[in-house]
């Protein structure tokens, strides 16, 4: 028996002490993932020629903080619920929740697999093979067959993570986190102590040695970009308007700090809410700070114009191969690869790249984990058939959920790799999840009125500004932010998702989810199960 501030507790199962806020931070930080998602999307910066990534990252961080307030509030109000599907079911109803969650956390994650595959290809296979002297194989990984193989490797690894269970996966994640942090620290240190002259020399040396480039490859890279039509602006030019247009890209990595903690104590209150909030908040803002530091170091050592030019040249070879300049280094300009060249040692470079890949291996399991949770929750609610949540009694592997993820992911990866034009559909990946977020944020915003008892029993109920619930205010700001992004995605060519085929494809995904729900309602009604009552509140009196 113990006494704590204001209350006594007795010996009872599940009464745990407060968990480490630092651990919660690790999960949020890893979900945002500065390296895999961050460095990848930063390379798209030249698509908004006058925009600057630095203010875009800071402004995005400010707005995503409101999202963190909202999700922290939902976790505090309905702890251990498992996420968007259950929150939305309780507040908005089972049908809306199913359509939004299934599309956002299941169907669209099939499309994240080839994106993960692409990241694996450009951040692991290609740079390591190139460094090992197999430039031909490295370039093969950017061919359809190479990307498809990378996607299959992702599927295999993630399926393995699901199969071994959360306990072992969590241990792998923690190992990868610390290993990745050390590797990133070395990359940043190299950029800090290296000079631009040393970098130019190293780049020219490796471009010649690995790819047979001749002359001043560094200067050629910048000139090639100018000839292609992109003149990189200097680092100090940070116009606000164009930089804001980069936000719909930057959210590709900064929108996910809420994937962190969902744990919440049974007999505590506001301190748990603050702990959940802090984990996500610091996960977000340490990443923003890292981004700023990275931009400064890139500008100092690589040269901002070179970095932007290299990125522009690379994407030109993908999206406008006819007009694209010839690359001195025909690889995605992975900053860790380029920084590693400051040390003239093959072994060091390979080890550094291998250690940096821990950012990928530790994080990659997230692509199926959230899907598995949604599939399980929907199967328990009887919207999906029972086999979808089946777990093998011998191996403890969730075979049904894995099948529902793995098979479509392989099909989508094949289409992405071999079917021209399909890749643009995967650009909807962030958009569809943002729509799911809209559902949860709307639920949180109206929670105080829609479910007053639930809201009043939550520790967030006492947080108000000018008499308005903090949850509602933060929800309003987040909705405006998400609406801005959605509006830009569907109206602006820059982001590549505002085409008719993409819209039709997305609508098909939503329609598929709706059809599954409606069929489930009819089938279950015949079996005597009223799905409308699954989440309906029983009267208290």
């Amino acid at each position, binding site marked *: 028996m113990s006494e704590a501030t204001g209350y006594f507790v007795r010996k009872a199962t599940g009464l*745990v002490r407060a968990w480490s806020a630092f651990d*919660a931070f690790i999960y949020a930080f890893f979900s945002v993932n500065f390296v895999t998602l961050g460095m990848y999307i930063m390379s798209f910066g030249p698509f908004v020629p006058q925009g600057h990534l630095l203010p875009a990252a800071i402004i995005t961080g400010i707005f995503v903080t409101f999202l963190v307030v909202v999700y922290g509030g939902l976790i505090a109000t309905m702890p251990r619920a498992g996420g968007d599907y259950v929150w939305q079911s309780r507040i908005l109803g089972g049908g809306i929740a199913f359509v939004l969650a299934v599309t956002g956390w299941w169907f669209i994650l099939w499309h994240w697999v080839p994106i993960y595959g692409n990241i694996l290809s450009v951040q692991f296979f290609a740079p390591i093979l190139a460094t090992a002297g197999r430039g031909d194989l490295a370039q093969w990984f950017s061919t359809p067959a190479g990307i498809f193989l990378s996607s299959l490797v992702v599927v295999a690894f993630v399926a393995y993570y699901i199969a071994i269970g*959360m306990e072992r996966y969590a241990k792998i994640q923690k190992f990868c986190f610390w290993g990745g942090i050390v590797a990133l620290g070395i990359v940043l240190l190299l950029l800090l102590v290296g000079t631009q002259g040393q970098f130019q020399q190293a780049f020219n040396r490796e471009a010649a040695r690995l790819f047979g480039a001749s002359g001043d490859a560094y200067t050629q890279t910048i000139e090639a970009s100018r000839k292609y039509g992109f003149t990189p602006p200097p680092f100090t030019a940070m116009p606000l308007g164009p930089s804001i247009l980069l936000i719909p890209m930057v959210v590709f990595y900064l929108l996910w700090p809420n994937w962190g903690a969902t744990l919440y104590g049974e007999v505590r209150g506001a301190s748990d809410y603050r702990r959940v909030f802090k984990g996500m908040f610091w996960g977000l803002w340490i990443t923003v700070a890292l981004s700023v530091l990275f931009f400064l170091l890139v500008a100092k050592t690589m040269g901002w114009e070179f970095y932007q030019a290299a990125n522009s040249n690379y994407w030109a070879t993908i999206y406008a191969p006819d007009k694209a300049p010839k690359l001195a280094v025909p690889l995605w300009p992975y900053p860790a690869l380029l920084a590693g060249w400051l040390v003239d040692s093959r072994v060091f470079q390979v080890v550094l790249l291998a250690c940096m890949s821990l950012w990928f291996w530790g994080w990659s399991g997230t692509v199926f984990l959230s899907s598995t949770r949604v599939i399980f929750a929907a199967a328990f609610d009887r919207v999906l058939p029972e086999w979808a949540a089946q777990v093998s009694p011998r191996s403890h592997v969730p075979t049904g959920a894995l099948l529902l993820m793995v098979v479509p992911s392989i099909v989508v990866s094949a289409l992405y790799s071999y079917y021209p034009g399909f890749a643009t559909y995967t650009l909807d990946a962030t958009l569809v999840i943002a729509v799911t977020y809209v559902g949860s944020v709307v639920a949180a915003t109206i929670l105080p009125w829609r479910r007053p008892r639930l809201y009043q029993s939550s520790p967030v109920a006492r947080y108000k500004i000018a008499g308005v619930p903090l949850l509602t205010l933060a929800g309003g700001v987040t909705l405006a932010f998400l609406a801005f992004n959605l509006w830009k995605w569907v109206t602006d060519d820059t982001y590549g998702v505002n085409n008719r085929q993409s819209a039709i494809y997305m609508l098909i995904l939503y329609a598929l989810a709706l059809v599954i729900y409606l069929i489930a309602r009819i089938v279950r009604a015949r079996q005597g*199960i009223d799905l409308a009552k699954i989440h309906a509140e029983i009267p208290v009196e």
Partner: protein
Amino acid sequence: MTKVFFATDLHGSEICWRKFLNAPGFYGASVLILGGDMTGKALIPIIRAERQYEVTLQEHRYVLKSEDEVQQMERRIAGHGYYSVRISRDEMTELQADPGLVERLFQKQMQSTLEQWMALAKGKLEGTPVRCYVCPGNDDRPETDEVIVKSEAVELAEGRVVEIDGVEMISTGWSNPTPWETYRECSEEQLTTRMAPMIAGLRDPGRAIFNLHCPPYASKLDEAPALDRELRPLQAGQLLRPVGSTAVRDAIMRYQPALSLHGHIHEARGVARLGRTLAINPGSSYEAGILQGTVIEIDARRGVSTYALVSG
């Protein structure tokens, strides 16, 4: 065909208990089964000052100036599953100095709350065809059984075979050892011994319901956050570990009952098939006032025909 509503781990939440009693009308169930852990985990003192009361709830200090406000706060505290007690500052000091006194106060509050719950059950269920079975869990003190036995509306299910429209059910709220050393814990061997006479008393174990508070080991219905020695969740609760009972798993795998009902691990809400047995842990969200449960249609001849996990 009998429609059963099963919920578990209410932990003193009066809102959940009231919802539980209203479940027959809401879901059309004729049988109510409550798994273990009815009693609350925390005691909130409402401290009497000169002309007001003071209370700290969810780490926020409230000053209550009228009897109406105090009663409102007491209802709010009960809604969370906590017990409230009005005491003076001196009594608070005594409680802080004497764990034995706190234990006795807990016992008193639990007993009086359970008596109120039984009275509520009588008011709701008397005169209806609904049968209600309760089996206290490892967190419930032994005295809990005495209160339930006296109830006219609720039947104690612990340690015996109960017949529900031709379907037999055995129940126990005992669990394998936990880090909290609660009231009804025993070794796996003792748990097997405890279940054995009940199982022996079944006409056909393959058609029965095993209402066992502790979930079967490694069934996904038993995954709880792994803890360090100081009972802190490891890796922010992301590191999950099976903590269920091997004795329960062995019993299910050996006798293959039609249905097994479990609780104990609040976060492990789910359904599993263990051979021919449908095993369910509806989980618990008592502190949010959400009654998680399961609605099952079962027949003595055909076994379970439908089921659904619900959040009422």
